[in-house]
């Protein structure tokens, strides 16, 4: 019964009228995704660019995994790099020392990451605020030191290099292309999963936990269960991304790629600048940070007065810019452009679409759901049955 209504819903959405009603940003996103999917085959994307995009995809996956738990349930973790490391190092070590097949190793790495997720999730039920921040900040820092102490086994700051690749396809260019599609598929899968969960009723419960645990409890839901669920799912996604990453040509199980504090900082900034707690914002912010830094590193313009090329002090400048962005565009790029876009639309359409001044979705505008407010009517048909199962 639920299925037939679901089919009906999907049909209605995919009908000509339904497609016409879909907001413009869905089309923009679709064009962007199709562009990325066709880039290497039809678009003549160079091998180097493909490898860079592959790295960018993995970075975005890391950002997504953080945004899902921090942005929605408000369990702000400063140690998500632990999950990537758990995934990446487990599979690399299994492969290098025991000769385990990468596919099996990735599975094992994901399981270890899930366990480390529990390690965060259980104290997070009791701790809040500063204590949770400190508690999550520590494990990666301890791990870095342990890796240095046992550098005979872990490779120290160089990490475990060259585990067997997951995909091998002839020459270098073909190999890069295969890995590009692997990363792209994984990213699309993770994005779709997180997007669906956060736009479902489960997502509403997670958002409600961020706002008030008591309110969630009094509505008959168990906040602890959802907190643990979201943290562990986030760890699984982060661990999976980290594990696959080390088996591609662009990644290796090393502190600088999986564990360092600066990586964590970039992830935090990507999610916040893109739009904290929106999933879509994490995607945009992740790409923005990755390509922004890449672009700045390539700038050869020599700054006057200090006589230094921009590229050499790129990290410094970039963090300065990000700091300003965080201050002056606190809501994030995506929610901001969504708001601006709506304003333009309302001008074009002669004020048919009212714009709420607080940035949320205007009342009664069914097809203008807010990115941040999760008023996504599109998912209600499917989410109803989901939440019914989830709540008990």
């Amino acid at each position, binding site marked *: 019964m639920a299925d037939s209504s679901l089919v009906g819903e999907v049909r209605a959405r995919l009908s000509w009228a339904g497609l016409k009603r879909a907001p413009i940003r869905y089309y923009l996103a679709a064009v962007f995704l199709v562009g990325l999917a066709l880039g290497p085959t039809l678009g003549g994307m160079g091998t180097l660019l493909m490898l860079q995009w592959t790295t960018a995809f993995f970075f975005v996956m890391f950002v997504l995994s953080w945004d899902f738990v*921090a942005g929605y349930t408000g369990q*702000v973790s*400063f140690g998500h790099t632990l999950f990537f490391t758990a995934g990446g190092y487990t599979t690399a070590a299994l492969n290098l020392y025991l000769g385990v097949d990468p596919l099996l190793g990735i599975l094992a790495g994901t399981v270890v990451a899930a366990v480390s997720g529990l390690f965060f999730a259980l*104290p997070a039920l*009791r*701790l*809040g*605020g*500063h*204590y949770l*921040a*400190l*508690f999550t*900040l*520590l*494990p990666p*820092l*301890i791990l870095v*030191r*342990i890796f*240095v*102490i046992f550098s005979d086994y872990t490779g120290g700051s160089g990490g475990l290099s060259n585990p067997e690749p997951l995909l091998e396809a002839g020459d270098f260019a073909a190999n890069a292309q295969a890995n590009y599609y692997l990363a792209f598929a994984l990213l699309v899968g993770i994005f779709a999963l997180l997007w669906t969960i956060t736009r479902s009723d489960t997502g509403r419960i997670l958002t409600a936990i961020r706002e008030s645990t008591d309110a969630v409890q009094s509505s008959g839901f168990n906040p602890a269960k959802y907190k643990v669920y979201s943290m562990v799912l986030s760890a699984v996604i982060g661990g999976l991304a980290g594990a696959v990453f080390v088996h591609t040509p662009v990644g290796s199980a090393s502190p600088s790629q999986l564990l360092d*504090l*600066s990586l964590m*900082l970039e992830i*935090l*900034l990507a999610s*916040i600048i893109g739009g904290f707690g929106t999933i879509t914002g994490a995607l945009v912010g992740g790409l923005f940070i990755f390509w922004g830094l890449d672009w700045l590193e390539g700038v050869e313009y020599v700054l006057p007065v200090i006589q*230094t090329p921009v590229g*050499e*002090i790129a*990290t*410094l400048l970039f*963090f*300065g810019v*990000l*700091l300003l962005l*965080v*201050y002056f565009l*606190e809501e994030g790029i995506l929610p901001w452009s969504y708001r601006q876009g709506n304003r333009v639309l309302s001008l074009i359409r002669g004020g048919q679409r009212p714009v709420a001044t607080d940035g949320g979705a205007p009342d009664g505008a069914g097809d203008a759901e807010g990115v941040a407010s999760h008023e996504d009517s599109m998912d209600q048909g499917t989410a109803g049955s989901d939440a019914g199962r989830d709540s008990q």
Partner: protein
Amino acid sequence: MPGTDEPSGMITQVLVNALLLSALYALVAIGFTMIFGIVDILNLAHGAAIILGGFSAFYAVQLGLGIWVGGLAAILVPALFSLLLYWILVKPVQHKNTMVIITTLIVLTMIEEAFRIVEGTGSHVLPSLVAGGTTIGGVSIQYNRAVLFVASWLAIGGLFIFINRTWLGQAIQGVSMSTRGSVLVGVDHEKVVLATFGIAGGLAGWAGLFMGISQGVTWDMGLEPLLIAFAIVVIGGMGSIKGSVVGAHIIGVIETVTTTYVDARLTGVSALVIMMIIIVAMPQGLYGQPGEVG
């Protein structure tokens, strides 16, 4: 007889080292915990004040001003930095936990990065405050380290007198207990917060000088003591100055013992592990208020 003599000499030596290390840790932790007590934030840029302290002294010496002027610069520059940090960056976002942590983490990263670019990754040597040394009861003590130790304790003792005996100090204590209550009885909140940031920055800078003289000045000298300060503050109870002095000694002794008797590479690890256990088992620490755990 010499067989029994040597271990006891060794133990005394370890104890002396532990006391020196603890004084250094206390300097860093006190500032961190004071800021926490007053404005309820985790100031990760506290590590940047340590770096600035070390490099201010280094530049003063480079300019030929001598290490004593350098020592003064090592206190004043970080104090000013800390004030500006609060005034410009922290104040607008001080009620948003995550934003404060991210902002101060960016500031720490930027300062590290700036010194790494300008000064490279090498270690820069600071001259000793005083030369020479002596041996008392089989324990060798350099005058330089003794001066640093005494100066650290003068700073800590002075702070205690300041906090307990002066009006501004009592105002700091008051705000730390209840901001609203203190403001109601006429405390200028802004002034108290600025004073706290200034003092914290100055103490951290002094610690930076201390570290610079004993181990050299490097671009990444701020993070390690900052992490140790976390551990100390958690053990002592967040916001408690007395707790952080006690915590500094606990951590200082544990650090010295593990690095001397177990493995020198364990620096920092034992403190961090202890801290994680304490956060889970006893979040309020030794002298903290349980109410602070949310």
